[in-house]
């Protein structure tokens, strides 16, 4: 009887292996990659102004004693248009929002800001995506909550939808 049972072990092993291999094959893993820098200081950077009428953005600007939202966005990014009203709403509620414009041209950026609103107090021109990579951001849009000492407190991946606003407000309040 014991040998009979042992005969099934290879088949069981095969079934487990097949299940393990089939699962990612049937639903390919495309997952959000959170930044590993949450809880750590913003890396040093200094970006030139990305748009007329707004200053550029440097890591020193994120250590001014008040928490801020750092929005990674781009004029060519469709979800960034979707989240524009929510960013405007957050800015209206007194949350300081600064932007990192990824791989953008000033003229495209100006058109984008004219069409979808400009809630940004500063916009850094991250033309070669170096600041986005330095922040551990894997796409646009992403939003970081940075506290007054320049520590990254929270990361929101993807467009900020209306239902995400309370969580971001809470993270902002917690960072004060």
């Amino acid at each position, binding site marked *: 009887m014991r040998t009979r049972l042992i005969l099934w072990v290879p088949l069981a092993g095969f079934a487990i292996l097949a299940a393990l291999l089939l699962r990612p094959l049937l639903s390919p893993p495309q997952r959000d990659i959170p930044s590993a820098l949450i809880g750590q200081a913003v890396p040093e950077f200094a970006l030139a102004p990305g748009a007329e009428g707004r200053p550029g953005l440097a890591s020193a600007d994120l250590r001014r004693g008040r928490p801020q939202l750092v929005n990674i966005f781009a004029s060519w990014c469709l979800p960034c248009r979707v989240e524009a009203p929510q960013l405007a709403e957050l800015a209206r509620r007194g949350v300081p929002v600064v932007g990192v414009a990824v791989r953008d041209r000033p003229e495209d950026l100006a058109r984008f800001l004219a069409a979808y609103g400009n809630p940004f107090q500063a916009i850094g021109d991250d033309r070669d995506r170096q600041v986005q*990579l330095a922040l551990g951001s894997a796409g646009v849009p992403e939003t970081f909550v940075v506290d007054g000492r320049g520590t990254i407190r929270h990361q929101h991946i993807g467009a900020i939808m209306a239902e995400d606003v309370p969580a971001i407000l809470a993270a902002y309040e917690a960072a004060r």
Partner: protein
Amino acid sequence: MNPPIPSLRGAKRRSNPAGAGRCTGLLRFARNDVVGVALALLIILPTPALADSSLPPAALADTQLADPRQERQARALMDEIRCLVCQGQSIADSNAEMAGDMRALIRRRIQAGERPESIRAWLIARYGHWVSYDPPLEPVTWPLWGLPALLILAGLWLARGRFKRRSG
């Protein structure tokens, strides 16, 4: 995952806009051209929604370093860094724009004399061990490294009986 880069190069080379309009003898070719262009347009049609910027790729994304030794180091690292967009591909294989920017970052840093392992550590500090295809040997990953050896031992143990019988 990688969208096919729509290329009109073939169609352009074959088309002869000036000649096709003037010379009736070329009409047959012109008709072929129309089919060719239509096919080329069909290739463009399923282009996915705007996911990349319209800026040209980063300077060192697709340009090799002048020093072959440095380029070899950079290539070796690129083969082991996961693309954040086309997850499952290395940044050397992916033609996502972000992968190009990461290749440029690696080449620039290697050019500046940085060690590949320190660039890998920099990326891991930002994206976690997930970004590297060379998992370190640590408690979490020891099954990954130990399982092959265990499976070979199990196989030998299973085969043990057979060898015994044959020799006996």
